[in-house]
């Protein structure tokens, strides 16, 4: 029987949506399987309790969870996330976590594709060059910029990745008054302030309306269509081709295969718990890095006893995160001119500034070093979490008049600015995903066990950058300046686990993100990344998934 679908894609987030778009536009019939439900643009609200404080767009941790292994006092200690509450789910709805992103997007630098060659090995780290160059990915960065609708401004900087087009498709989003002070202060210090490229439309475009500066962007779905989520940028136009079948509440629990190819996916309906098998010519995994590896390992069979696509034994290995450290400072009404403070308090506008000056460092930590990117933003405006953060003074819980004073003054007399540092999270033998075979989730799948470890080098890089950021805040006149560095990873920016490369003994995927073992299987999310650059990943994820889409089209056309 002819397959009903040319391709089945598992996961409808940033990567799955981009592949679906490419295939559907080229006329192929695609089934997009998403374990979560569909929340339409007009159904999103700014409900802090639901979106930010409960597991509404992520699974209940008693049903589905991870086990986290961290080194405590020299020993690896396992804690299931239903105990810790540290969820590694990020957005399980149509469009995935891209619905909820803040949309600060950056290209990786050409050096990031050849970290080993340019910067050399670092003891204890498994650094490998990428199987493709920046030049090969550049056209897809440009395509993603156009399709996602990334607003920004081309500005010269020695550490900026080169562009093939003159400027961004849309001008930057509106900015808070603080940017003037920020730019002035940076210039006084000889630092170059840069406008952050943002996956947010500053002007209406077709069905998608411009940003209305809702004040609640990150962690929330966008109800104007301005945010360039996979749902808006890719799934909606893919549906419009008539070639896409979107199956919601469809949790894939296993891939079936022969020695040479994947034959079917096993799908459980999350509402009825009924299961069925679906087949296609091509299968694409886009579950977000840690979950794609988990599915492959859960799909072990007699042909692939170590897990699917795992003849190298590399599935789940070399997990990386996009992280470094964070810090911030506070502006107080009492220390500022009334008019300046009031301008600062204007709701909804972005800080929109990033710094690249420490992306590459010369004669630093003893040689030419990879540094990182810094992003500046206001403290998240969530009311409940801001209020909760005022509840202690000297480890004593405040209540009554004291609490009311503290909360009121925090909300009305001050404004907090933050910075986040992104530097390489070096891949190591102690950061990987395996199966926790003792523990099963609601669907009978072995739970993913994440061993987490940050290389000490990452911390020293972040520390040097944090010092520079503190100087910027000092120059701006902020008070209570702090920075906090930790090797605790952010659960929303994960990559690695299925490295791409040229050697099937050491990599899971070839340069096209196609499995070495079963040729009709592709992994389209950030799993392929051997190193992550010093930027948040999502522009790279979008770009690479568009590239993978093109590769799959070639396979379907028998040109590859």
């Amino acid at each position, binding site marked *: 029987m002819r397959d009903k679908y040319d391709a089945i894609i598992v996961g409808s987030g940033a990567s799955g949506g981009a592949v679906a778009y490419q295939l559907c536009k080229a006329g192929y019939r695609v089934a997009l399987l998403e374990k979560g*439900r*569909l*929340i339409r643009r007009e*159904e*999103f*609200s*700014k*409900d*802090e*309790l*639901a*979106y930010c*404080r*409960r*597991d*509404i*767009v992520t699974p*209940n*941790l*008693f049903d589905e969870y991870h086990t986290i292994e961290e080194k405590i006092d020299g020993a690896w200690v396992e804690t299931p996330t239903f105990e810790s*509450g540290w969820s590694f789910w990020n957005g399980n709805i149509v469009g995935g976590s891209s619905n909820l992103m803040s949309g600060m997007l950056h290209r990786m630098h050409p050096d990031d594709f050849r970290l080993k060659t340019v910067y050399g090995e670092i003891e204890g780290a498994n650094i490998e060059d990428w199987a493709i160059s920046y030049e090969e990915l550049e056209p897809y960065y440009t395509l993603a910029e156009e399709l996602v609708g990334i607003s920004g401004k081309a500005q010269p900087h020695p550490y900026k990745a080169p562009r093939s087009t003159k400027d961004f498709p849309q001008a930057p989003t509106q900015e808070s008054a603080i940017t003037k002070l920020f730019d002035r202060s940076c210039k006084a210090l000889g630092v170059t302030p840069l406008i952050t490229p943002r996956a947010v439309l500053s002007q209406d475009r077709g069905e998608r309306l411009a940003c209305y500066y*809702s*004040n*609640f962007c990150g962690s*929330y779905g966008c*109800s104007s269509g301005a945010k360039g989520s996979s749902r808006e940028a890719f799934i909606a136009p893919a549906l419009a081709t008539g070639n896409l079948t979107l*199956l*919601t*509440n*469809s949790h894939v629990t296993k891939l079936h295969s022969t020695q040479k190819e994947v034959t079917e996916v096993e*799908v459980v*309906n999350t*509402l*009825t718990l*009924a*299961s*069925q098998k679906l087949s296609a010519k091509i299968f694409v995994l886009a579950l977000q890095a840690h979950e794609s590896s988990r599915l492959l390992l859960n799909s072990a069979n007699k042909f692939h006893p170590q897990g699917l696509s795992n003849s190298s034994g590399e599935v789940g290995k070399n997990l990386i995160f996009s992280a470094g450290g964070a810090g911030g400072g506070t502006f107080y009404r009492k220390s500022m001119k009334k008019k300046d403070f009031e301008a600062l308090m204007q709701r909804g506008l972005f800080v929109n500034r990033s710094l690249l000056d420490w992306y590459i460092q010369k004669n630093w930590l003893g040689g030419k070093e990879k540094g990182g990117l810094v992003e500046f933003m206001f403290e998240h405006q969530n*009311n*409940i979490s801001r*209020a*909760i953060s005022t*509840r202690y003074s000297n480890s*004593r*819980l405040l*209540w*009554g*008049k004291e*609490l*009311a*004073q503290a*909360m*009121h003054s925090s*909300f*009305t007399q001050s404004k907090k600015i933050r910075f986040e540092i992104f530097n390489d999270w070096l891949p190591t033998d102690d950061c990987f995903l395996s199966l926790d075979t003792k523990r099963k989730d609601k669907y009978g799948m072995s739970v993913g066990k994440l061993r987490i470890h940050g290389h000490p080098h990452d911390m020293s890089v972040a520390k040097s950058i944090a010092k520079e950021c503190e100087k910027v805040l000092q120059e701006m006149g902020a008070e209570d300046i702090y920075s906090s560095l930790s090797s605790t990873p952010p659960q929303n920016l994960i990559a690695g686990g299925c490295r791409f490369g040229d050697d099937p003994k050491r990599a899971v995927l070839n340069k096209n993100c196609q499995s070495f073992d079963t040729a009709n299987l592709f992994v389209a999310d950030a799993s392929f990344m051997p190193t992550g650059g010093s930027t948040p990943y999502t522009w790279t994820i979008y770009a690479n998934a568009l590239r993978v889409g093109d590769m799959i089209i070639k396979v379907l056309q028998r040109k590859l």
Partner: protein
Amino acid sequence: MTTRRTFLSASAVVGLSLVSAKEESRQRELPQELYNILQKVQNHLFPKGTLLPSASLFGATDFLQETLYHSSYDRDIRNFVLRGAKELRDTHKGELLNYNEEQMEKALRDFEETKMGSNWLSRVMILSIEALLSDPIYGGNFQELGWKALETTGGSPRPTSRYVAL
């Protein structure tokens, strides 16, 4: 075996079965005595006459009750909140409800000295702040008084149902 048709139609009824599960859990209530203890504690944390509305005005305890029994709420935390309220009751031999403001202050500060007590008070505080500042659709933040007191608002669009029950 599920046919493809039933598989797809089940996918289309997104959320319906979730709503009924929630309705069911909403019928559960705190035992009256524990409700009264929690109310007394919340009234002490958010009394009348401060820059914030009082717990009784913003609907702290009804919010807490509904929240604890909602299917989205962590059952371990729910049990912890109940356990802490019982512990407080037992430590004060059932007298807590008769305490005046001064006695209440001492009782809670003493409780804070214990590990369980400080965690419990923090949790009750978090639940109270959720009541103060969540969208009024959840039953707290009466007439948006919490937002108004802090010169803030929620974002737009506002939720039209609790917990994204589409």
